[in-house]
């Protein structure tokens, strides 16, 4: 229930038992998985849903009238309904299944962009966007002779909203911003960003890759025009995700891909397209993974996003405390409002060495630019080490992370 403001403590050790992958040794040590912003792990019920689908119901959907096709179609459409509820969309047909955030952004950039952008128009992104929310806009800007404008990021890792207010103008056609940053963890004030954009009649796309498993989402309350989610970052299978789009917008957008499912009638003389959402779901979709995604949604709903967020916030605070105490460690991204992501660098030690050293102790973190090179450029660094949390992580794991870093710092700094 996303309206809860208080939260109930979760039984993390019990939750961990639902994640078979966590029960293993890596390099002789128990796995400590802190690479959740890249992709998080899947509870048994999600894996079981895949097995069950393939062992009982596998069939191509929508066009079949036999029993298996019926079952598969029903289960597939049930996930659409569950996702509608999950993000509080007004209409179920506003949920389009894609491969994930990258495809969702490309769909909008290509379909909406190609139809409605003109020479001289402007698109606004931010300096902390993931490449997936930069490059599609660069490509369409290039094609349409439009210009990409960038909201700068402050030293602690927040968007400079005052500059944003100045950037936006009559020329602006689209604003594309992440809900939370994958490198810094910053939760952006998207409601404010959307309101400002709408006061200029500008359409807003939100990249929710780092939000969907952590922050309650209400697209109607936010009033955002597009919202993008990847299943694999919210306890669901790889290979699927959604694009939410307001019905009025989706209806006036041209199709993205052509093929089966997305048509009403095909003749060589004239082809008419199907209604949304099918207009944007050409070809056989990723049926099994969409169906299993429903279990990931239930998993999150049953725990309660507020409870998950509260646990992750606790881990984050503890991480900040522990890492700050280690000499030569510099935290990157210290915004006030954050999801459970902490980047850092260690003076004079390359992030690869830290990553590999930690891996030798069974600790999985991500190292590098995290697909946010412009942001790294701004900080004048090549990359960071990033620890990021999901609900199954523990303080004990943070202790192990800190201990590992301490050891490598001691070794290389003496």
């Amino acid at each position, binding site marked *: 229930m996303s309206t809860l403001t208080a939260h109930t403590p979760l039984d993390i050790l019990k939750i961990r038992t639902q994640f078979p992958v966590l029960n293993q040794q890596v390099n*002789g040590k128990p796995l400590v998985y802190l690479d959740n912003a890249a992709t998080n792990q899947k509870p048994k019920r999600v894996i079981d849903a895949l097995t069950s689908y393939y062992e009982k119901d596998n069939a191509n959907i929508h066009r079949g009238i036999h029993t298996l096709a019926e079952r598969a179609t029903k289960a597939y459409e049930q996930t659409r309904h569950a996702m509608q509820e999950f993000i509080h969309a007004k209409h179920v047909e506003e949920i389009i299944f894609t491969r994930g955030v990258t495809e969702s952004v490309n769909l909008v950039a290509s379909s909406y962009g190609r139809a409605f952008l003109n020479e001289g128009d402007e698109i606004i992104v931010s300096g902390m966007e993931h490449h997936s929310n930069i490059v599609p806009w660069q490509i369409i800007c290039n094609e349409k002779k439009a210009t990409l404008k960038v909201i700068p990021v402050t030293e602690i890792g927040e968007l400079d909203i005052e500059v944003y207010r100045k950037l936006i103008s009559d020329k602006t056609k689209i604003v594309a911003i992440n809900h939370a940053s994958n490198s810094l963890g910053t939760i952006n004030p998207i409601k404010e960003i959307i309101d400002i954009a709408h006061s200029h009649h500008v359409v807003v796309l939100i990249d929710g890759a780092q939000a969907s498993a952590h922050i309650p989402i209400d697209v109607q309350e936010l009033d955002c025009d597009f919202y993008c989610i990847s299943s694999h970052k919210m306890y669901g299978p790889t290979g699927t995700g959604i694009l939410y789009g307001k019905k009025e917008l989706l209806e006036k957008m041209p199709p993205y891909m052509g093929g089966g499912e997305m048509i009403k009638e095909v003749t060589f003389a004239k082809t008419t397209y199907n209604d949304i959402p099918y207009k944007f779901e050409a070809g056989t979709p990723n049926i099994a993974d969409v169906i299993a995604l429903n279990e990931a949604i239930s998993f999150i709903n049953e725990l309660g996003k507020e409870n998950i967020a509260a646990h992750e916030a606790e881990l984050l605070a503890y991480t900040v405390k522990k890492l700050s105490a280690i000499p030569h460690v510099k935290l990157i991204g210290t915004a006030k409002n954050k999801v459970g992501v902490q980047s850092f660098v260690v003076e004079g030690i390359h992030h*690869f*060495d830290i990553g*590999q*050293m930690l891996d030798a*102790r069974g600790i999985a973190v991500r190292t590098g630019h995290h697909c946010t090179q412009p942001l790294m450029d701004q900080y004048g660094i090549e990359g960071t080490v990033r620890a990021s949390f999901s609900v199954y992580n523990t303080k004990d794991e943070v202790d192990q992370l800190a201990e590992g870093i301490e050891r490598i710092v001691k*070794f290389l700094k003496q």
Partner: protein
Amino acid sequence: MTISQTQDEIINEFSLLDGDMEMTVFYIMELGQKLSDMKEAYKTEDNIVKGCQSKVWMVANLKNGNLYFEADSNTAITKGLVSLLVRIFNGQSPEDILNADLYFMSKIGMERFIGTQRSNGFASMIKQMKLYALAYKTKKEMTS
């Protein structure tokens, strides 16, 4: 020492680590720390080994018909890894380097601790050293 002898020495040293990954990584970094730093002037675009994820610079000189390498990297582990190659090939003839079979890699289970991405980088370093050897061999043959 021959190329094989150095390899056997390395195999022996690594066997003492008993497959402990953390000790192995520390040991590799230690080897890197022992490799003398390269002059900053040599760390140019030209001397970068292509195909490595971390930056690796390498130069080679011929002395008395044998090759001597200097190398450096911006990451400690890669520096340790390249130091192994420098140790194996330093003072060897271009011919021997060209013909060398680097069996130590599989013997110490290198793949396990460097992973695919560094594996490709490591292969690039070896390729670069063999290219130097080929160049000097050709040069020697042309001037002789």
